[in-house]
């Protein structure tokens, strides 16, 4: 409930729907221009995913690993674990 109050308080600062805001104005241009110069990687998706947003990718990998561990804990027998 406290979290909900905080979210209602923070909702005032969301930019209007469909309006350009400071957050998504220039960042995609920077990615396209800088990715080959900075990381020597032609695939922009890989460069963004594993370099600029690598903590996010670490979270995704952790989610998959934790899912596997949960299945092993709930359904596994003594043969594997």
């Amino acid at each position, binding site marked *: 409930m406290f979290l909900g109050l905080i979210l209602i308080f923070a909702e005032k600062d969301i930019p209007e729907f469909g309006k350009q805001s400071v957050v998504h104005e220039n960042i995609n241009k920077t990615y396209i221009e800088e990715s080959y110069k900075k990381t020597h990687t032609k695939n922009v998706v890989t460069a963004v995913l594993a370099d600029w947003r690598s903590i996010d*990718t670490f979270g995704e990998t952790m989610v998959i690993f934790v899912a596997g561990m949960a299945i092993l804990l709930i359904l596994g*027998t003594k043969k594997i674990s």
Partner: protein
Amino acid sequence: MKGPTKSIVVDIISRILIPCIFTFGFYVLFFGHESPGGGFQGGALIAAGIILSRMTLPLKESMDMMSDKQALHIASIGIFVYFFVGIISFYQTGNYLDYSNLIPSLGETMNHYWGIMIVEIGVALCVAGTMVLMFDVLAEEYN
């Protein structure tokens, strides 16, 4: 030497197909810099090859490729590689997962290149191990 499917067609075709699936998986993993692909996709393809071998080949041959305990170890090693690269870069540059000074003799650009490569390999190991582990745990009672 026939597997659990009792059909020679399925056996022969899967014996031909599994090395091709592994090769394509490693291609997708290591050419993620130049073409669509990367860690998740490569790991999923490698896991698909091993799961196909579990379903069609005899159990002992399939377990020689990657046993269930090895799958657990491979998943743990993959996530440890990712975490350890982050720790090394935190020690060197002060930012977590900032690869600019990973090996100081290389330039900054090539450091980013190899940092992305190592991280993708870690992701691929984790995904492949976890998928094989899930399949083994869920299919254990049918063995």
